[in-house]
Every structure is written in C-alpha cells, then in structure tokens.
C-alpha cells in the first residue's frame, strides 16, 4: 500500500503541474531556472501543448508582417495593438528584410527567406532548415521550375513538418501564334503548364528531408498555387485542372499519413480568386467581390465546409464592407475580420471590420505590402515548444 506521505507528494506534484501549465510563457522561461525538474517539465511536448491551448483559449492574437522591417505588431481580438518584444534571432539582417510568413502552426512560424527557418517568436528560438535535396546541388536552371511549401504537423504528435513541392513547367503549344515560324515570336509566347513532380518532406524531429513517393490523385497545373493553407493538420490548395475540360478542385495533403486527397470546390464559386480561411473551427473559402452597383463596397462571400463532409454551405456574416481589398483573418468568437484598405496614395494598411459593415478600427500605423505572395497576418499563440532536439 502506498504510504500517505508518498501520496501527498504525488498530489502536490500534480497540483504544481496544474499551476505551472497555466502560466504565461514569459514566467515559464524565468522559472526554468527554479530547478532541473521544472526545466525538464517545460520541455515536454504534452506540457507545452496544454500550456499553449490554455492561452489560445484566453485571447486570440495575430502577428503582422509589415511592408518593411522586422515584424513589430501583434493584434488581439479586441483590436488592441501590442508591440512585439522583438529579439532578432536571425544570423543576418537580410533574413529580416526578405522574410515572409510561409505559415504558422502551434506558435511556430515557418519563415521563407534566404533560407528556410522555423521561428518561435515567444522564445526567440530559431531553427535553420537544411536545404531541400532538390536544391542541393541547385538545378542548372530555374526558368521552368516553380516550388511551393506547406508548413504544419500531425496534430496527434508534437512534430513540425514542411512539405516542399517542385513543379516542372512543360511547354505547351503556342496558341497565340500557332503558325509562327519566326524563332523570336516563339520565345515571346512560351507558355508553361506546371505539373508537380517532386515531393519532399522535412521533419523537425529527425531534422532531415525525406523524398515522398507520391502521385497526385489529379493532374493539376500549379500556376495558381501559393503555399498551402493549413487547417486541422491538412494543407489545402486550389487546384486548376491541367486541361480546360478538367474539373478544378481542392488538393489536400494530410500530415497524419502524408497522403494527397481532393475535394470539390463550392459549385457556385465561379472563379479562382478565393482564399482559404478558418471561421469558427471550419475551413472556409472566401472572396471579397466588388459590388458594381455600390461603388467602393465589397461583398464578402463565405463558403464553409461542414466537418468531415465535402458539403459547402454559403454563409452570410458580413454586410458589404467599404474598401476591403484583401481579407486576411477572421476572429473566432467575435466574427470581425481583418482586411486591407488603401489610403489612396499607393499605401495599404490594416483594418478591422464589424459584421454590420462598420469599420471597428483602422490600424493606420501598420503599412502593408499590396502584393505580398504570403499572407502578412498570421495567427500567433505563445508556445514554449523547443525547436532544438536536445
């Protein structure tokens, strides 16, 4: 029989764990120095994960990548701006000036820059990702190669993964000047269709890349690809059929089993200028559509996917919104959205819209880049998850 004293020690240890897991990361980083057991406890993925979930529930936040310089701002769901306690962990300033948020998952940012990095903005830890095998040694020419990434992980493990997709462009017949015999004309009209050929997967736990032997379930042209949108451990891309008559669809990559699948697009979504988003725990397909009869106003068209089905439902959440040039983020509980407006002088800034159509807040001090390929607004959760293996 267990002695009373041992039982009390066990109860006490459980209680201490319950208290520590509720602390903000800043406190945990300080209390790592209390003793070795605490230090070890905070490195445990189960602890880090629970701690993150507790804070995620309290207040949602996003980090903003501005047009220039290092990320400076965090915005919370009540439209409060916080200055990021920026500690530059990167080896040289070029990384900061060229960095793009390629994705975030569980508080870790995937940074695309001179190299690929994983970055934990809360602990300032970074991890340089080795060069994908496809680029090592670099291919002789990049003219007909396009590459895409997706960042995420299997929600059932604590690992972080990067999927690297290489598409090779195949020249398709010149349809503009089909009969041209002049060589220069031919060069002008080179058109490629990009077909994914190589899939490489990086695992943080092994710090290495693996070549995945995969064939896509559809033939798709990646001309319109961006980095995949992560939802519930699955990356999503809009996939354009290789030929005109092919159906467009959504291509998905599941980090749980490293397999591709497809689902249909909402049948009434009539062009490909939609974005993915997460709205109230559902995957959403959204578009800001300019209303020609109401100049300057945009309708926000929202399709959400019913969980575990391929059923899209159209949702009306927002009244027409003025000057909404891009949609970036939907807050979960208060259904406001963050989008981009213009000052009219070629500068773009962040705005928070209320569902009834009014502007909840203009973040005039946050200047955005109008043509960034990667979304400049990313979910930010504090995480103590370590990126180092030791």
């Amino acid at each position, binding site marked *: 029989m267990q002695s*009373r004293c041992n039982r*009390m020690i066990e*109860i*006490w240890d*459980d*209680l*201490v764990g*319950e*208290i*520590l897991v*509720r*602390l*903000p990361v*800043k*406190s945990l*980083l*300080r*209390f*790592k*120095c*209390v*003793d*070795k*057991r*605490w*230090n070890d406890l905070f490195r445990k993925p189960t602890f880090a994960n629970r701690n993150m979930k507790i804070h995620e529930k309290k207040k949602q936040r996003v980090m903003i990548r501005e047009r220039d310089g290092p990320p400076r701002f965090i915005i919370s769901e009540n439209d409060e701006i916080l200055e990021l*306690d920026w*500690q530059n962990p990167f080896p040289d300033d070029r990384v900061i000036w060229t960095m793009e948020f390629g994705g975030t998952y569980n508080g870790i940012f995937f940074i695309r820059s001179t190299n690929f990095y994983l970055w934990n903005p809360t*602990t*300032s830890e970074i991890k340089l990702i080795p060069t994908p095998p496809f680029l090592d040694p670099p291919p002789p020419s990049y003219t007909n190669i396009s590459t895409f990434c997706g960042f995420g992980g299997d929600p059932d493990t604590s690992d972080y993964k990067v999927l690297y997709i290489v598409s090779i462009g195949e020249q398709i017949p010149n349809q503009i000047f089909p009969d041209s015999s002049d060589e220069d004309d031919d060069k002008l009209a080179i058109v490629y269709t990009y077909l994914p050929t190589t899939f490489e997967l990086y695992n943080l736990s092994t710090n290495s890349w693996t070549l995945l032997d995969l064939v896509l379930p559809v033939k798709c042209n990646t001309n319109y690809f961006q980095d995949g949108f992560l939802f519930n451990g699955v990356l999503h891309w809009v996939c354009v059929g290789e030929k005109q008559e092919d159906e467009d669809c959504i291509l998905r990559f599941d980090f749980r089993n490293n397999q591709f699948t497809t689902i249909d697009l909402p049948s009434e979504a009539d062009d490909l200028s939609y974005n993915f988003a997460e709205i109230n725990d559902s995957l959403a397909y959204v578009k800001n559509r300019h209303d020609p009869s109401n100049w300057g106003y945009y309708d926000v068209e929202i399709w959400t996917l019913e969980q575990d089905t391929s059923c899209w439902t159209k949702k009306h959440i927002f009244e027409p919104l003025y000057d909404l040039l891009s949609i970036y983020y939907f807050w979960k509980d208060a259904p406001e959205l963050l989008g981009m407006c213009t000052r009219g002088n070629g500068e773009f800034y962040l705005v928070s819209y209320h569902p009834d159509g009014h502007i909840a807040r203009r973040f005039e001090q946050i200047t955005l880049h109008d043509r960034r390929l990667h979304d400049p607004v990313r979910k930010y959760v504090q995480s103590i998850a370590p990126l180092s293996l030791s």
Partner: protein
Amino acid sequence: MAEKASPSSNSISLKTVDGKIFKVSPAIANQMLTIQPLIKDSDSSTIISLPDVAAFHLTKIIEYLEGKPAAAPSAVDAFEAQFVKDLSPEELKGLLIAVGYLKVNGLVDLMANTVAKLIENKSVEYVRKFFGVVNDFTPAEEAKCRQEHAWAFDGVDED
C-alpha cells in the same frame, strides 16, 4: 478511517486534522471525489476523518460548494473572485493542498488559476520558497539558464 458517531439525520460527518467535526449533506460530500467511496459505505453514524485538511480549509471548501450553485450563472466569476480575494499566499497554499487531496469539483481549477496569477510575476527565489523546491543547478548552470532568456527577468515583482 471511519469511526462511529451518534446517529443523526442523513448528513455526513467529516473530522478535520485539528479535531473539528463538520456535518455536510451528501450532495456536498459527494463533490469531494476522494471521500466518495467512503460515503457509499457509511451510515449516519459514520465520521470520516480527513488527516490532511484543517478546519479553516474545510470551512472554505464548504463555503465554495454551497455558494457556487447559489450564484446566478452570470455571477459565478464574481463569486469565485470574492472567494479567493482575502486569502494570503500561505492560506492559498494550504487550501490548494486540501482541495487537491479531497479532489473538489471545480475548485482545483480555481485554486490553480489563482496561484498561477499570484506567482506569474514573482522571482525565481520566491517560487522556490513558495513551492519548497531546492535548487539543484550549479551556480554556473543557473547563470547560463538565466542568460538564455534574460528578458523574462524584466518587470519581476519585489519579493
């Protein structure tokens, strides 16, 4: 653990470490998960001893279990805030241990949140003392650990 007492109504008698006997309704006693199995086998004459709970702590626990259901749903947060408001750090710690030992529904969360709030901005030395943790780092190891996230040591409360 259970001794016989004089028969009375169907209330449960709980005896604290400092010898006080509390009579509580089965509905209240059942929310202390640790003693649940003892309640099943007990009759009105049973006294359940609680070797790790003092009268002060049991009074607070009963206050919580009786007061929380009586509060309107919108007033629960205010009730909980009031419940912990005047407790000193030492009283919090004692109550936390009692609550942890008895496994009191809902109160473990409240106590853990309250203590977390209390220590959030405290120094390493304060929490070592509070939790009775002995530092097993060498001075060099500790200095290195503090160096790693020096910014986390900004804005710490005075002990």
